[in-house]
């Protein structure tokens, strides 16, 4: 097991390096740069800017000094667009926000999705099943950019219960709408995966055996069916978790959370090379880590898997 983990971590480093180099090159290949403005600057002003941010150096040198800055000082450089801030500042401000609403959304999505999927499978082809499937399909097809404005109109404008946007760590009323908007489609996916995998498990031999030896229905489900049925859900959860805690640009835009999801998309549009690299590396590293984590959980859920 330990060897397996070490091996995976050893592969992670070159993977991240490749990710950095590729993203860096792709970004620089896009037309325009961070200082391309509708209002064109005189060439001497542009030259001063390029010199200050090292954009006048050859590309390989820029990549090298960027990577060296991260390795040696854990410094992702200054933002090219938000000039009072470093990339570290921007991530330190935005990531805790998305981590909070993303983390809560994750819990909500998993709990609700697994319950919904499991109940639907157990009550297969009953009205409860149709209802659960209906909810999950409805949640899946309602995009969050439609749901977000509706939520604000209902809960802020009409009912006046919740603040229409913004963010406070100490006031969960600011979290509710972002969590609803973010978690519903994940919940729907989890419910559908859970339902089909549970159905498959319920038809398998060991369940029939368990029933045959006279175990009560709820014990069969909780003790024997739930755990193996979770396996496909778990493999979905690794990447989903990363996607959720690194935020959603839609949630950030509609609820003005100041989260990292908007910063990521903005950095690409603004050609804010440094912020874009910083967030790409964050998402990349988290993805690698949580995929590893999921693989470890596999071993715990499914005794057939051994590393």
């Amino acid at each position: 097991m330990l060897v397996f983990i070490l091996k995976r971590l050893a592969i992670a480093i070159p993977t991240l390096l490749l990710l950095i180099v590729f993203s860096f090159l792709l970004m620089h290949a896009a037309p325009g740069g961070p200082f391309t403005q509708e209002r064109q600057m005189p060439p001497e002003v542009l030259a001063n800017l390029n010199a200050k941010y090292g954009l006048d150096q050859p590309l390989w040198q820029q990549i090298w000094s960027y990577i060296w800055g991260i390795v040696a000082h854990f410094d992702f450089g200054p933002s090219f667009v938000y000039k009072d801030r470093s990339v570290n500042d921007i991530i330190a401000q935005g990531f805790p926000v998305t981590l909070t609403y993303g983390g809560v959304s994750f819990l909500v999505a998993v709990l609700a999705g697994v319950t919904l999927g499991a109940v639907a499978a157990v009550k297969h082809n009953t009205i409860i099943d149709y209802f659960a499937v209906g909810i999950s399909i409805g949640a899946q097809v309602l995009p969050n950019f439609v749901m977000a404005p509706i939520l604000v109109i209902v809960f802020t404008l009409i009912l006046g219960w919740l603040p229409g946007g913004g963010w406070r760590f100490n006031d969960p009323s600011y979290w509710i709408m972002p969590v609803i908007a973010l978690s519903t489609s994940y919940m729907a996916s989890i419910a559908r995966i859970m339902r089909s995998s549970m159905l498959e498990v319920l038809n398998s031999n060991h369940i029939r055996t368990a029933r045959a030896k006279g175990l009560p229905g709820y014990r069969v489900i909780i003790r024997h069916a739930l755990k193996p049925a979770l396996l496909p859900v778990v493999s979905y959860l690794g990447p989903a978790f990363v996607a959720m805690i690194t935020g959603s640009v839609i949630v950030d835009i509609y609820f003005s959370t100041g989260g990292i999801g908007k910063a990521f998309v903005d950095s690409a549009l603004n050609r804010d090379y440094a912020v874009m690299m910083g967030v790409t590396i964050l998402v990349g590293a988290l993805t690698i880590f949580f995929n590893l984590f999921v693989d470890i959980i596999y071993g715990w859920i499914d005794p057939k898997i051994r590393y």
Partner: protein
Amino acid sequence: MKLTTALSALALFVAAPAAFAANVPEGTKLAENQTYTFWLLDAIKSLDPQINTDVEGSDIVRNLFEGLYNEDGNGDLVPGVALDHDLSDDGLTYTFHLRPDAEWSDGKPVVAGDFVYAWHRLADPATASEYAWYLQLMQVKNATAIVEGDMPVEDLGIKAIDDHTLEVTIETPLPYFPQMLTHGSTFPVREDVIAEYGSNWTKPENLVGNGAYTLSKHILGERVEMDKSDTYWDADNTVITHLTALTINDVNQGLTRYLAGELDRVDIPAGQYPRLKEQYPDQATSLPFSCTYTYLINLSEKGPEALKDVRVRKALSYAMNRDVVVDNILQGGQKPAYNWTHWATAGFEMPDIDYAHWSQKERMDKAKELLAEAGYGPDNPLELTLNYNSSEDHKKIAIAAQQFYRPLGVNLTLNNMEWKVHTDRMQNQDFDLGRYAWCGDYNEASTYLDFFTSYSGHNQGHFYNDEYDAVMKESKTAEDPQPLYTKAESILNEEMPLIPIYQYAKVSMIAKDIKGLPTQNVMQTWYGKDIYRVAQ
């Protein structure tokens, strides 16, 4: 000879000494709650006066710092840190007399040296300010050489005679120079604070400003909060005690939150003004705003041959049905544009533009005639592309243009692209027609008209015209430049290097108890210190 406040705009100092600070009419009952919450479309890129480039950033900077002069609700100059100034006979040396009671938020006096440091910093290549060119625009002595790195910053034409006397030398007389001083990039900053905190100096815990407000919170992309500054020289007349700016990236969402009472001012999304005006007549407002929306025509070598024919350019301009754009698409009180300079610009005399008075039918007939003369028509269609950046409004106008041009036999291919790509193409002359908008830096026509000089760095369509250049050069030293500006506009109308489409309006919802926002200032420059909230 001492020409104290010789310029007409500055004569107001004497005439209306009470026109600054919140001008609350007598008998007004003020509300208990004196806060003002306004909307920002995007995260503030920088609160550093010399680094900021955005209009929204300027709205914040103007409340945290104060320059030599401020603008009042009509856009006229009123004293800021400077009480007044003298101008030398040759029109090149300004001597500003600074108010002795101006203080920074940490209690230290604001001195002439703070301006000298700020301007040096703006010019310094090491600062790499995107607005370094503003010093060049202001014609400050040696600015260009310093920005290019050929001279030390100490040679810039600004020096402190003593703590309260500041002398600025410019290279050519510039009648509107004082107006340019309300721009944030000329505001003073503190050398010791910047030296101590480096690029972190604009964080709330470090920032020292000299404006009417101090920064209490800045969460990127979420909010900016400001409290009234006790050290501001006019704090006694400042009514609003707390300013909050909320970033809401979606205009419709902003409107919903305004209606829910979370904001005091928000922009109205395109097309919604008539409905809101009917529903909330005392809140929906439309005020002229100094920007012009246009399609630039590529006259460079890379541009299509057909567009080098002025008859084709005129036909394209005539066929653009501006009334449809402003009345059916935007619906926010914007005005159709037949010229370049915004109609409400101070002192600007609109030239007599022939086709502005024609009916659209007359324009279409003339357009067809001109195109036929140039050899194009439905039988020999002209193929052109129109580049624009992704946005619902740009798209709607572009689609409308496509329809306007079809009867002429002009096939317009629409090229929608991401903003940076669009900008890059425009600046490399890779376009036929390109969407563009220009906003005035100061309230005077030259901020628009300089754009089309051959030596302007912005002239992306490469319109080069000797007569135009000569007129604009002459305007710099003329006693009254306005007739020359009118002449320059007439040349643009003759040569048509652009298709002017509409002139902007600031279309917003403003809470009915908020008073003191500017109504007559086409720059829409506002100061928190001028606002107050009346009791309902």
